[in-house]
């Protein structure tokens, strides 16, 4: 029973549905059907082919170009070796087990350093984004640290910790933490104000709002920050390994590369550059690309 609306004569049943209920329902279903596009399902093989074939083709072209340069003999073969020579050198290292050990040493260091960077960079980014005075104080510093090559910290690390793993981790952290924090800040800054209003209308405040609105809304920027953070971590680690040699540090990929330089072994140098590149690409493709794709696809921001 509705209360009497304003004015006499306007009874409760003044406003009646103009279309009978079942007709309204079918009308609505028809319009829904017309206004939504059916989900397109592509076969997984075609998706895979579309994703894998182009980069493989590009790699093949680079190899071909390299082989051509080798044939033309711009430089002697002990300066620019052929792809096959590099392959042999890598195969030999693999048989000795040195390559696997080197990759494992570096990747485990990189991932551990990256994990610690995430643990530091995430709350740091949240804090800087949300607390105004902290933002004013630290935001320029964080952007500055991003442009400072973190290898510049190696001498400082050696003075502080000596030739110890702590030096390498310091460099990795200083490389990755700013990227992750800046990604978090960018993610939060790019949240449309409407989402905050929605949160308030629904009754979310403080930590509840952070959990249900702020953090999920900041995900695209944060994931981009993670991706860049990994790239910086890996890059910094390689640079640091290259200039620190010690039995205590073991032999990572960077140290193998430096060994190549010392022995004037260009096949080893080329081989290690390729390994460093491949490891970076592999981690990105195995961990970060799928993460980014799922975050973006869920929001309808990227095609399959």
């Amino acid at each position, binding site marked *: 029973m509705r209360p009497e609306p*304003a004015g006499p004569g*306007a009874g409760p049943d003044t406003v009646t549905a103009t279309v009978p209920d079942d007709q*309204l329902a079918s009308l609505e279903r028809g319009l829904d059907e017309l206004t939504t596009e059916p989900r397109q399902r592509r076969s997984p093989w075609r998706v895979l082919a579309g994703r894998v074939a182009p980069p493989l083709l590009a790699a093949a072209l680079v190899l071909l170009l390299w082989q051509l340069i080798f044939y033309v003999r711009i430089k002697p073969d002990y300066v620019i070796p052929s792809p096959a020579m590099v392959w042999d050198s890598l195969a030999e290292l693999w048989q000795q087990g040195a390559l696997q050990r080197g990759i494992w040493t570096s990747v485990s260091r990189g991932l551990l350093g990256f994990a610690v960077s995430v643990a530091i960079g995430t709350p740091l980014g949240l804090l800087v984004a949300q607390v105004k005075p902290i933002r004013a104080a630290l935001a320029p510093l964080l952007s500055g640290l991003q442009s400072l090559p973190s290898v510049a910290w190696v001498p400082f690390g050696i003075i502080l910790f000596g030739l110890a793993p702590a030096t390498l981790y310091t460099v990795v952290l200083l490389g990755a933490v700013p990227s992750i924090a800046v990604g978090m800040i960018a993610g939060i800054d790019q949240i449309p104000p409407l989402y905050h*209003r929605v949160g*308030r209308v629904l009754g979310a405040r403080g930590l*509840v709002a952070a959990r*249900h609105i702020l953090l999920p809304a900041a995900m695209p920027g944060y994931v981009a920050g993670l991706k860049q953070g990994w790239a910086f971590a890996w890059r910094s680690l390689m640079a640091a390994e290259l200039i620190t040699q010690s039995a205590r540090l073991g032999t990572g990929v960077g140290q193998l590369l430096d060994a190549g330089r010392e022995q004037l072994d260009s096949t080893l140098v080329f081989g290690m550059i390729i390994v460093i590149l491949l490891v970076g690409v592999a981690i990105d493709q195995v961990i970060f690309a799928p993460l980014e794709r799922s975050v973006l696809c869920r929001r309808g921001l990227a095609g399959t």
Partner: protein
Amino acid sequence: MTATETTVPGAAAPGKDTVPAGIAALAGGAVPTGEPAAVRVDGLVKRFGRGPRVLDGVSLRVPAGEFVCLLGASGCGKSTLLSVLAGLERPTAGCVRVNGGRAGLMFQEPALLPWLTASRNIELALRLAGVPRARWRPEALRLLELVRLEAAAGKRPHELSGGMRQRVALARALAQQPRVLLMDEPFGALDAITRDLLHDELTRIWGETGLTVVFVTHNVREAVRLGQRVLLMSSRPGRIVEEYPVRIDGDRRIESPQVAELSVQITERLRAEIRRHAT
């Protein structure tokens, strides 16, 4: 029954120069005093910082279960009034009272959270409203059924059309279990066919739920099509200048002659109001 009330002491009765004589009585007096109003606003003044008054002495009463439309040109402060009613903005002066605790609010944009499915968007609203966990899912599905979108429960907002998103947003607003539903030009961005259909749909849902609805629009015909009462607002500062009870029996469609007739009358008044700013 709980009520949220915001009163700024000492300012509840604005001076003579802020309320045009008779208007407060016109807007508020149409309803017999003593009847519990779902929404009561007395002498509301709102200004942002040191800026001009956006709202200046707005008074209105909306009895429980009424569908009232707030109509005005752009910049007349109708959205601000709604934000104050929703508790998103504090009044500078005056008294605002909304029965039944928090009012549900629908924006012009569907404002669904893009990382959640249609169903999860509603479940989040239920969760934040303090509904026990076991009831989130069934209640969300019931609300989706009410807006006839049960088939879209697992879809994400970007997979839905504009009209479907607004229906999910309506279901989400209903999930807050409000007694008062505030709607801020919710169909403004939709195509005419969809909007027409959603008018029917909203009328149906209003009939089923018995909600009090305050519907803001700048579309005169939409206001006459939907409302039992249309309140016309002036611009700069925003005030309620005229009230039109809508007495149309039986069929009421946007193209009905009775709707057109009243719309012409209201439009004339609205234009006169806008012309005042010409000099």
